[in-house]
């Protein structure tokens, strides 16, 4: 899935007491942020999906995540302009699958790796192998008996060419990603030639941080 299903949807409030929701409450029809009439805007909010609303949207092919979270609403004062957007993050990392025990794990620190160091042509060569946190297995890249690098034959088997022992690889590495979203809700205003802003950063669990730094998160 090349996107992170939303947890909140927005609703724009107008000065005539009408609203424009991101998804029509009855039909599920989507409205774009650019459809918001900024001249009539008096308030804006991020609202969590109910299970019923999420079910309705799923029948339209839209995947959203209902959560029991509060709504976050902002009432805009005179001369305040809306700051309302989603900040999307994609964290790309390498994960490992241990075929010995089936564990899937990350190895993000030096201590998560087994280190083998030998000397080749007068220079140190290090081989790192991720350690399964569940069963402690790690693949060998250096033969423990002969202290020689393990080679691969023409059928893809790993072995020591001195003692002919085989050392099959049981740790698979694969790339994966984690996506998360922060929902920004705030205002900015120009007063006496200077720009002021205040922004609420809301994560997908409803935790919040307030800052005047647009790049706080």
């Amino acid at each position: 899935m090349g996107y992170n299903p939303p947890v909140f949807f927005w609703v724009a409030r107008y000065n005539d007491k009408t609203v424009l929701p991101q998804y029509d409450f009855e039909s599920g029809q989507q409205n774009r942020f650019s459809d918001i009439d900024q001249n009539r805007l008096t308030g804006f909010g991020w609202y969590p999906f109910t299970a019923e609303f999420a079910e309705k949207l799923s029948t339209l092919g839209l995947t959203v995540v209902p959560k029991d979270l509060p709504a976050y609403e902002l009432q805009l004062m005179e001369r305040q302009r809306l700051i309302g957007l989603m900040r999307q993050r994609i964290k790309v990392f390498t994960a490992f699958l241990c075929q010995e025990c089936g564990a899937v794990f990350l190895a993000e620190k030096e201590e998560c790796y087994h280190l083998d160091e030998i000397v080749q042509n007068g220079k140190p060569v290090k081989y790192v192998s991720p350690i399964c946190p569940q069963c402690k297995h790690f693949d060998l890249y250096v033969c423990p008996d002969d202290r020689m690098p393990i080679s691969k034959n023409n059928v893809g088997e790993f072995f020591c060419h001195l003692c002919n022992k085989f050392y099959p690889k049981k740790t698979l590495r694969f790339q994966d990603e984690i996506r998360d979203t922060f929902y920004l809700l705030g205002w900015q205003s120009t007063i006496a030639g200077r720009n002021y802003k205040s922004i609420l950063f809301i994560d997908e669990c409803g935790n919040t941080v307030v800052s005047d730094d647009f790049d706080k998160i």
Partner: protein
Amino acid sequence: MVATVDIQEAMGSTPTWYTVTAARYATYDNYNPGTNNPCVVPTSGYNYSYWKHHALYMYGSFTQINNIRAYTDGAIGWALGTGGALLVARRDTSYHGCPANQYYPSVGTVGTSGTYLKTATTGHLWYQGQTIAPIDFGNYTSAAPLTIDDTTYTSSARANSLVTQVMVASDATQGAKAAETVTIVYDEI
């Protein structure tokens, strides 16, 4: 709804873009090289990997996407030697990514070294004439990410590429390296 955004890597002269599945630096141009043509520790000076282009490809239903940035966890622990680093290409402008129409395929000697991306006449055309040099990508963290693209996209598009290259010094430690994490962040409405 939200945009669908894939991270893609370019390969070849045309280029062809592939959704990233196993990014690894090597001494040839391939988005999924496995352990073929690994980076080589030189006897003196520096060797380089072939440079890589990684870009966001965005499509689906959205109003706009902008403020595309990237960062690391701040420590690329690959022991690349004195002066060695995972380099990220930079421009003298406010953004540092390479537009799709300025793509330049990586060149070098297969199995030995890529050409340093800022080499005067044979390096990457988008970067070779810049005053600012590539820098250790580890310098860019969540507190101060690298701006890849300052364009505001309102329809399907491929954003500017993050261009990176490994620089290996003669006193680098040989061997397979631990995996590293990169985070891409962008704003969407």
